[in-house]
């Protein structure tokens, strides 16, 4: 006898958040991110129709086809998802947006759009599935590849990597986090928190490419991640209604961040004196980690004070895309009045 699947508060089973089967490589980090997104949506009781999925081009950017099959999505152009997302979210700011990009998509071709979207603070969880390589075109270095790294196909990389989190901080992003695809819980909780952020939540997820960049000496490999991950915090997420339940903690060890929709992110400090409230500090810490060969993960920076683009634009509650025709077309009188001024 089949057991009926467990349903969440909006009456959906986990399977309702699934989509087409993945065509990515077995073991690809991107698949585990997709799996966590399904889990997150289920746990957060999201209605699929309240979510949109956006991406650029790449293996990573394919993955929106593999989760939340009942949500609208757009797999757009290489490096240009930020602008597409900006337009879509100005048209409809009432949906939650999940953007999936790659390190090539964001760090190489898309760096400009990425940074300018951050300046505008478009409300979107912007996930970079960062593997230091171009997966889909078979193994070239991306802009986040390690300096001096050698790959079978691509040779030796003579250029210093760009750091997605550092770039996000420099661009004024208010939610900057890094996670490791090998750490499912961390990925899940940080995405949950990101979904409650009103602005762009940048989540740089080290997501190994098993086909082209998973040698242990690569900072984007599973082995490296497992050995060198250093989490700033243990992250928890608690929806508005739920009580915060965590293990014992000493004074100052736990930080509770109230998110704007009433939910809370808990940060159990693993690094005693790190507060994710100072961008300069975050940059400094990132650079330290780099020198120390750490894969620093966790919430690097959080500041909800900047308005999102939709807020700064003072958009009405009804999304622009759903305004009735008579709101969109001014009356007959306004036209003649206005034209009188040109006579």
């Amino acid at each position, binding site marked *: 006898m089949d057991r009926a699947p467990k349903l969440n508060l909006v009456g959906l089973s986990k399977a309702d958040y699934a989509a087409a089967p993945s065509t990515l490589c077995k073991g690809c980090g991107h698949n585990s991110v997709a799996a966590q997104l399904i889990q997150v949506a289920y746990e957060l009781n999201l209605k699929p129709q309240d979510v949109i999925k956006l991406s650029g081009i790449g293996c990573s950017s394919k993955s929106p086809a593999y989760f939340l099959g009942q949500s609208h999505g757009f797999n757009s152009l290489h490096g240009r998802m*930020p602008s597409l997302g900006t337009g879509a979210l100005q048209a409809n700011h009432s949906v939650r947006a999940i953007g999936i990009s790659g390190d090539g998509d964001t760090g190489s071709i898309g760096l400009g759009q990425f940074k300018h979207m951050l300046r505008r603070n478009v409300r979107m969880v912007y996930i970079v599935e960062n593997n230091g390589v171009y997966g889909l075109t078979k193994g070239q270095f991306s802009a986040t590849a390690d300096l001096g790294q050698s790959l079978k196909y691509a040779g030796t990389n003579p250029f210093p990597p760009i750091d997605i989190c550092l770039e996000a901080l420099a661009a004024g992003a208010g939610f900057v986090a890094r996670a490791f695809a090998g750490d499912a819980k961390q990925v899940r909780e940080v995405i949950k928190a990101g979904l409650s952020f009103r602005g762009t939540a940048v989540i740089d997820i080290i997501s190994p490419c098993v086909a082209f960049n998973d040698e242990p000496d690569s900072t984007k490999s599973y082995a490296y991640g497992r050995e060198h991950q250093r989490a700033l915090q243990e992250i928890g997420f608690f929806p508005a209604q739920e009580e915060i339940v965590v293990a014992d903690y000493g004074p100052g060890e736990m930080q509770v961040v109230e998110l704007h929709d009433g939910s809370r992110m808990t940060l159990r400090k693993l690094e005693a004196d790190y507060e994710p409230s100072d961008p300069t500090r975050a940059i400094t810490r990132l650079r330290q980690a780099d020198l120390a060969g750490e894969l620093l993960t966790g919430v690097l920076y959080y500041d909800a004070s900047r308005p999102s683009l939709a807020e700064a634009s003072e958009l009405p509650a009804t999304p622009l895309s759903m305004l009735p025709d008579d709101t969109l077309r001014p009356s007959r009188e306004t036209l003649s009045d206005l034209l009188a001024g040109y006579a």
Partner: protein
Amino acid sequence: MAIDTLVRPDAGAQAGAKVNDFSIAVATANGTGSQTANLTLLRSFFKMGIPVHGKNIFPSNIQGQPTWYHIRVSKDGFVARRPPELLVAFNRDTMHQDVAMLEAGGVCVYNSDLRLNEGRSDLTYYPVPVKELLAGVDVKGKIKEYIANMTYVGVVAHLLGVPLDVIEGALEHHFGKRQKLVDSNFEVVRLAYDWAVANVAKADPYRVEPMNATEGLILMTGNEAGALGAVYGGVSVSGWYPITPSTSFIDALRDFLAKLRHDEDGRPTYSVVQAEDELAAIGMVVGAGWAGARALTATSGPGLSLMAEFLSLAYYAEVPAVVWDIQRVGPSTGLPTRTSQGDVGFAYTIGHGDTKHVLLFPSSIEECFEFGYLAHDLADTLQTPVLVLSDLDLGMNNWMGKPFDYPERPLQRGKVLSAEEVAALGDWGRYKDVDGDGIAYRTLPGNPNPAAAWFGRGTGHDEMARYSESPTDWEQNMARLARKFDTARTLVPGPAIEEEPGAQLAIVAYGTTRYAIEEARAQLAAAGVATSFMRVRALPIGDEVRDFVARHEDLVLIEMNRDAQLTAILRDELPEFAARIRPIAHLDGMPLTAAWVLERLMPFLPEEARRLMEGA
């Protein structure tokens, strides 16, 4: 002709006088505020009821380089460029060449502080002692420089016979509620006018007389008209990036939106975002279009080039988008402040792969307004990008026109399914051609029916929008898109046709070349040479265009580009008539004149017609 309520000016004019029929060129330096003076003159003529048009021939520069303003005053309502009979020479750097350009009998009003060493005896000179005139005016620095231009307004007003109160009215119009500015400018006009009355003996035949040929008309730029049309078309998202000559389109859009589009709570029912470049601008538009808002961007050549990839995506993923391309002279940066029709060929198939786009060619402010909303109706109906190809001349200059008709048809949102409709259909597929017109049904993000979700992509897909590499899926989908383009042929504005019985030549053109052509046709008609005229207003062409071409063996197609770009398109689409479509293509950045059109038409006219013209 744009104006069909012409009234002849007073018949009682003295013999030899040239009344309400001349061109003025005002030569100044950029950034000296001469625009106010020029627009004041322009609007004064307009307020006197005389058909008029002004062209700003300006450099790509902020301050100091030569700039010209051409005003055509035409009792007959002709508004094409015409070499000026009157010159206002207020720029030392170009004075020499400006004067040289005048035909014999011309008039030169000049700033006598600039010491014009010209001795052409075939011109009438009127020196204006600007410094002296301004000596008593109590302003300083930059403002004084700005206001100095008002001196020629006063002198010209006297010479041509423009009443001072008309000038004052024009200034009031210009400055709106800012009475202080009206006063300070008018003070200088009056000063110069009074000085002229006292000191200048009229020695030329040009003058104006009131008419009532502009009654009920408006004066507006094409960019304003287009933006206003978009506002009444319900545009709600715009991503844009500054580039001349499209910037003023967006400026106008923002102004009109701010005036006209707020909800009950006073919140804007729109969002205009200045992008970091055109790649992002079009990205925002496509994103908004996908999400269900009416969205537009405005740009010019270099920006259009940057939009190629996104337009290819929007074509294939079938996302509505509107692009106003205010054409300037390319290739490359080219002449950024000069006009052209040079993007037609590029725009029609912009984007790699088999792409074809709907293009609209406005020629007047009325059409700018109409196409302003129509572009969105078409983009939504056809679920595809629509490019409106205007040009600098139309976009940035002031043109007369009839007050715009309020759009009678409700917004045409096309085949968008609600949650209930999706449920009722059961087997809805995003790319199914249910109606045989190539247009499938779409749903918008936020549709509460989870079955309404579909996944947009630029990759191959089947009717259900699922990823597909199947050759037949590809082929069938592309065939449907071709079918949709054929549907577009029946939906876009048809050509404007004036067919004359016994026409000796048929002329085809589009956009703003119409004005010079109409004037040339009038001259031909006056000499007894009948011509027919088809003004193409959109691509793809439909039956009307084909039939016109089929009916006329002698055809010329006039366009402002080097490569005869529309000619190439028509020749391809009408191969059986390809040879009869003979191009007159030309590009130097200047709007056409009737004289030029006539000269170029000559070789195409039958022998007999040529003789008639030479006699005329």
